[in-house]
């Protein structure tokens, strides 16, 4: 199994498209950090202008945690696209290249092949998130240093610096879980397709489409919204609530796990029965 996973990882990392994701994250994160480093004060003044009529903010408002939070907010829209770019190609790519038949004549079960491909895809997805964490926190520490974090959602929260790291750990861990769902979806679509464009575009279209429909027609779709995994993609923000309890995130985690299981099982079931024609 280990060998299968390393072969799949080798395949992933020899394709140029794999590096688009890493390159995009590298450029976006650095661009945000440099932008905030240069114009952060002005940007922040705009955000806190209403509060500063009544209050004085004393201390360092811009720091590595605040900037990492902004990066998280910005990138959770883009990371699923970058994940789908690779995971959507995992099975469909073989069909597209005409390597399915050769591959499946080898003495390995289809189950093992599907699992190893999915794990390899997951490793890629997690590496994307890890790069994001490393850049956000590492470069953030060099440029801005640590400090208390100002979070403005439905309320204004100021979180002490000694109370932040576990929140980021939780948010990133939950983010990784969400990316696993996205990887599962694109992998699932990939098993049905003979061309990788379909699963990649399909995954992006589904995520963006459901999110837009859920936002625009929130009142219409209210009864079904709790059943969409996209509803919970932004739940990492819960970790930055001052009165956070793990109960709050429990349902979101459960929904993501259910979707991952469903996508994986259908993919596995379908691929085992799949008639290989390409």
């Amino acid at each position: 199994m280990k060998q299968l996973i390393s072969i799949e990882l080798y395949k992933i990392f020899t394709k140029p498209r794999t590096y688009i994701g890493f390159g995009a994250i590298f450029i976006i994160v650095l661009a945000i950090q440099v932008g905030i480093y240069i114009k952060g004060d002005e940007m922040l003044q705009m955000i806190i202008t209403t509060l500063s009529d009544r209050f004085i903010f004393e201390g360092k408002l811009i720091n590595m945690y605040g900037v990492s939070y902004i990066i998280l907010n910005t990138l959770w829209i883009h990371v699923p696209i970058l994940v789908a770019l690779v995971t959507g190609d995992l099975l469909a790519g073989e069909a597209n290249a005409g390597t399915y038949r050769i591959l499946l004549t080898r003495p390995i079960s289809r189950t093992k092949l599907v699992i190893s491909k999915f794990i390899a895809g997951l490793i890629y997805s997690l590496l994307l998130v890890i790069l994001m964490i490393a850049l956000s926190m590492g470069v953030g520490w060099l440029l801005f240093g640590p400090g208390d974090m100002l979070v403005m959602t439905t309320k204004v929260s100021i979180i002490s610096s000694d109370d932040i790291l576990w929140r980021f750990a939780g948010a990133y861990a939950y983010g990784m879980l969400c990316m696993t769902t996205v990887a599962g979806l694109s992998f699932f679509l990939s098993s049905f397709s003979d061309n990788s464009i379909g699963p990649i575009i399909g995954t992006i279209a589904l995520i963006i489409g459901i999110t837009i429909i859920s936002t625009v027609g929130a009142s219409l779709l209210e009864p079904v919204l709790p059943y969409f995994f996209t509803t919970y993609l932004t739940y990492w923000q819960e970790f930055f609530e001052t009165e956070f309890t793990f109960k709050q995130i429990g349902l979101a985690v459960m929904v993501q796990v259910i979707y991952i299981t469903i996508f994986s099982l259908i993919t596995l079931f379908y691929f085992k029965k799949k008639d290989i024609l390409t």
Partner: protein
Amino acid sequence: MKKLSIFILILASFFAEAESQSVPDELLQALAANMEKINSFEVEARINVDVEFIKIKERFVKVRYLKPDQFEFDAEGLALLPRNGMQMDYLSLINRPYTAIRAGEEDISGIRTVVIKIIPDEDLDDIIMAQLWIDPQKLSVMRMKTFTKKSGSYLIDFKFTNHPFNLPDQTIVTFDISNMSIPAKMISEFKGTEDKVSDEPLPAKVIIQYSNYKVN
């Protein structure tokens, strides 16, 4: 006889008016003289913000005062301070030209205080008018209400123990935030799409506890 009565009445009202004008000035000058003894001080402040939509734990701030009315704050981490109320705002008023009017007497915590309204003669940064409740015995400001151009009014309650320079041990700043507009994303929990926090008066309270005064 009638003419004499009228003259006496006019004279009496003139002296009464003069006395009512001199009392606030005397009190305020005595207050200023009391603070004049202090060149600078440094104090540790514990700040608790009690606002419905602001979540912040107790913060520690080092406050430095420099005569006549300069204040500096040095926070441990990120602190939220009330825009008015921490700088003994009456100092900036009485150290500049002003007009003071006596507005009666009131009891605060069993202490008979003299109420004085102060209107700055020159255009100060933000304060239009202030009302002081002064303990004439100890020459300390027990309460202050400031009316500002930008951010409404602030009620500041001072609590004292027995500090030799009559510096406060606790300050409670109360102000209304219902008119405060907040970023779009923050509105949803309060009032749909309106850009105000609340239609009803929404009080914000900041409690500042002072300790370890170092007076020079």
